[in-house]
């Protein structure tokens, strides 16, 4: 980093970051003024509707749209044939973004429908009702094929094959010929056999978790307007406007400059809005119809046809000595990718043992296709299911060794200088600190009643860097505007403003943070990967420092001194020399007022690919009570401890911890995709998908540990994803202790738990 001082984050006194100002976009959001994806409308706008496959696996022989086109009010109908073939290449974006060719086929099916709900055709009409009626009049001739609905079915001999021409990639041994295995990879080091031989205790367990959805409350929505020149303007709720632009351009076979994406406010994403679904359809419909087209998914469509995360089958084996030192670890991770390759199994392989010192590890990861929606990133993609296995096995080891579960983890916890199981050595990290904070928390000592149990679990996520751009401009009166390209999904505008305020030395209220469209700011990767406050924040800090350099230069010019003679302290240019010659400090506002006469407007810029993302570790405590007659589980108390590096806006850091915990509790206890035998999701609505409601949860206590990330100028680590990693295991461990059972499958639904209780009795 090129800063204007050499101080490290930890010895700096912060003035603005770490405070809790009202978020800048807050007023619009509490008054209903904020415009989300479906809130935009244009004159002459048409309504789009997608026809979706009623079969989970079928060859599309023929599509006849004549009757639909004949309906009064129908202005355009499109099918897969209206789209160009897209070449295979890696799609850059959220975890498991996969391959462009697959992404194009996921947007609209060509020869084959690969899951129930796969888009087959789309219509634009003058009303939503007419568009819906038109969809019913499209005749599709399907050859229905047997679907593959589970990992076991997919891997069975003689399984129906989703992609006949694809071949497994990765590390041998691989299936020969067509299979549903997209890839098989191995990772590891040391001598696992010897490690297990050295162990006094070995625990091995298998777990299954179902496909689950991010569950954002705002359905995907897009409004597209295409001109006679083919240029499209797209309003949509997305985590990455630049990804929408890049992907849509590829799917439509046009150049990037033909599409401008204006990100609307976004009603949740959690990874699920890092890709495209209706965007290219709306663009093409609007091009064909010559009118703007709005396409909004129903909740049912969100469940059936957007990207949840993988169902998994995980086997973990850990060995430890009598005094609790881990000697070896082995993990086999088998993840559903959905209809196209690209599950988050690689991330799972890298995270599975990451919190622990393990010299001997062997990790195997399988990416397997099934006739279900193609998975998309979901908060710490792949990691929670892997952590479920490791953390429950650790709990069992602690029980068998008679050790406190936190002590066992402390004994093996990674710290600075330890080589991670995924390769490199850790720099400064705060895992041990989270364990110690959890152990000394009153929660950990609170007494438990009958049928109650306490679970401990830990989690890790890398946090991503990727590319970001930022502009900071100074207004004539000394206030400032910060422009970035990351949609604000949870208060990031406030964080950007805080970091700029800190650097500029002006109140955070004087900084207006703006989210710009793809033509108003340089390339910026997704709002995801816990990267916005870290990476885009880094760009904002650099841009603000660019502004400060310019301000110092203006002061130097006014004072007729060298740039080096001018410092920047608390929002003012100061002459560093002992002898001031009557040069009083110049405030930012004073310099801004003179800007036009000292060289023109002051605008700072930064564009970077962020390095040095600091891993985030968490330790969670969960208390539950079990009803032994019905199998119901009540979460009584929950505490999430996590290292934030430096919490820029602590309220929103706490909010990230609490939100991740709530999602994790839902995943552990109730959430799951339930499919019937033909591959139709039976619970495609909020009634039966069962996300936690307010009365299901207790207050969620948080402890923010701050071990600054040495690679970030303000010490920031990403905080968004780690919080969902421990809860699956924390809840499972708590239930196992409360009910005195061993569990092997999520969700821990009442029937499943009651069965386990009755079996153990």
């Amino acid at each position, binding site marked *: 980093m090129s800063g204007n001082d050499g101080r490290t984050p930890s010895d700096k006194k912060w003035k603005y970051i770490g405070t809790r100002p009202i978020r800048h976009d807050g007023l619009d959001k509490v008054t209903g003024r904020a415009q989300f994806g479906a809130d935009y409308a244009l004159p002459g706008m048409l309504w789009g509707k997608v026809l979706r496959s009623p079969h989970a696996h079928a060859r599309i022989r023929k599509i006849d749209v004549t009757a639909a086109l004949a309906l009064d009010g129908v202005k355009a109908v499109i099918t897969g044939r209206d789209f160009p073939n897209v070449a295979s290449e890696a799609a850059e974006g*959220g975890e498991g973004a996969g391959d462009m060719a697959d992404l194009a086929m996921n947007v609209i099916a060509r020869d084959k429908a690969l899951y129930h709900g796969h888009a087959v055709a789309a219509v634009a009409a003058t009303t939503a009702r007419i568009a819906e009626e038109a969809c019913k009049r499209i005749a599709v001739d399907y050859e229905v094929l047997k679907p593959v609905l589970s990992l076991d079915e997919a891997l069975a001999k003689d399984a129906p094959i989703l992609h006949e021409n694809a071949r497994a990639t990765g590390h041998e041994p691989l299936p020969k010929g067509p299979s549903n295995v997209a890839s098989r990879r191995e990772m590891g080091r040391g001598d696992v056999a010897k490690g297990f031989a050295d162990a006094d205790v070995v625990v091995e367990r298998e777990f299954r978790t179902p496909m689950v959805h991010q569950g954002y409350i705002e359905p995907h929505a897009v409004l597209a307007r295409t001109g006679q020149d083919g240029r499209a303007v797209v309003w949509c709720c997305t985590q990455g406007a630049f990804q929408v632009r890049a992907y849509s351009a590829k799917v439509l076979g046009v150049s990037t400059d033909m599409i401008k994406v204006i990100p609307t406010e976004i009603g949740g994403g959690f*990874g699920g809005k890092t890709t495209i679904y209706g965007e290219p359809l709306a663009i093409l419909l609007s091009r064909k119809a010559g009118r703007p087209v709005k396409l909004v998914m129903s909740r049912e469509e969100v469940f059936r046809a957007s990207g949840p995360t993988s169902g998994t089958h995980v086997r973990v084996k850990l060995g430890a000595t009598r005094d609790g030192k881990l000697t070896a670890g082995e993990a086999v991770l088998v993840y559903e990718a959905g209809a196209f390759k690209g599950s988050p199994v690689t991330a799972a392989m890298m995270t599975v043992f990451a919190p622990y010192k393990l010299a001997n590890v062997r990790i195997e990861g399988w990416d397997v296709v099934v006739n279900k929606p193609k998975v998309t990133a979901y908060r710490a*993609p792949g990691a929670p299911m892997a952590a479920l296995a490791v953390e429950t096995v650790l709990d069992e080891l602690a029980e068998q060794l008679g050790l406190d579960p936190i002590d066992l983890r402390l004994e093996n916890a990674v710290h600075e200088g330890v080589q991670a199981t*995924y*390769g490199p050595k850790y720099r400064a990290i705060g895992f041990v600190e989270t364990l110690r904070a959890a152990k000394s928390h009153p929660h950990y000592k609170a007494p438990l009643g009958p049928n109650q149990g306490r679970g401990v679990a830990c989690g890790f996520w890398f946090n991503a860097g990727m590319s970001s751009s930022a502009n900071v401009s100074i207004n004539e009166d000394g206030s400032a505007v910060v422009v970035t390209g990351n949609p604000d999904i949870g208060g990031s505008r406030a964080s950007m403003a805080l970091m700029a305020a800190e650097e500029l030395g002006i109140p955070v209220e004087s900084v207006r943070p703006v989210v710009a469209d793809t033509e108003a700011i340089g390339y910026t990767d997704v709002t995801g990967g816990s990267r916005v406050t870290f990476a885009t924040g880094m760009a904002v800090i650099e841009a603000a420092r660019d502004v400060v350099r310019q301000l110092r230069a203006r002061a130097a010019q006014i004072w007729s001194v060298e740039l080096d003679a001018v410092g920047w302290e608390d929002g003012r240019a100061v002459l560093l020399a002992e002898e001031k010659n009557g040069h009083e400090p110049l405030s930012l506002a004073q310099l801004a007022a003179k800007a036009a006469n000292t060289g023109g407007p002051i605008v700072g810029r930064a564009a970077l690919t962020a390095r040095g993302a600091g891993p985030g570790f968490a330790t969670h405590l969960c208390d539950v009570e079990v009803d032994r007659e019905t199998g119901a589980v009540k979460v009584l108390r929950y505490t999430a401890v996590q290292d934030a590096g430096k919490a820029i806006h602590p309220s929103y850091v706490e909010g990230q911890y609490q939100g991740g915990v709530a999602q994790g509790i839902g995943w552990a206890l109730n959430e799951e995709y339930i499919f019937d035998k033909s591959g139709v999701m039976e619970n495609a609505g909020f009634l039966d998908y069962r996300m936690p409601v307010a009365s299901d949860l207790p207050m969620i206590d948080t402890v923010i540990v701050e071990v600054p990330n040495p690679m970030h100028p303000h010490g920031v680590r990403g905080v968004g994803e780690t919080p969902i990693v421990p809860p699956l295991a924390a809840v499972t461990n708590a239930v196992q202790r409360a009910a005195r059972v061993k569990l092997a499958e999520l969700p821990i639904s009442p029937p499943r738990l009651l069965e386990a209780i009755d079996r153990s009795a």
Partner: protein
Amino acid sequence: MARVFFSSGLRRQVGGAESLELEANDVRELLAALDAKFPGFAAQIGEANAIAIDGEIIPHGEALFERLRPESEIHFLPKIGGG
């Protein structure tokens, strides 16, 4: 001499070695040296990967021009996105 580490998945490509010491000033030279020793290695470490140099994870493309110190430790990793 920078030290390069190989995870078990890559080890088959390099004759089973867990790590190797190589003379290289930057990552591009390192990859060239590895590719000369083990033809096809550079292709295997494609764009879909990241490279960790002394604990700092850097996307493949950007890492190519990264200077290496004699005591540098290099790991090849899959690239991680997020959610």
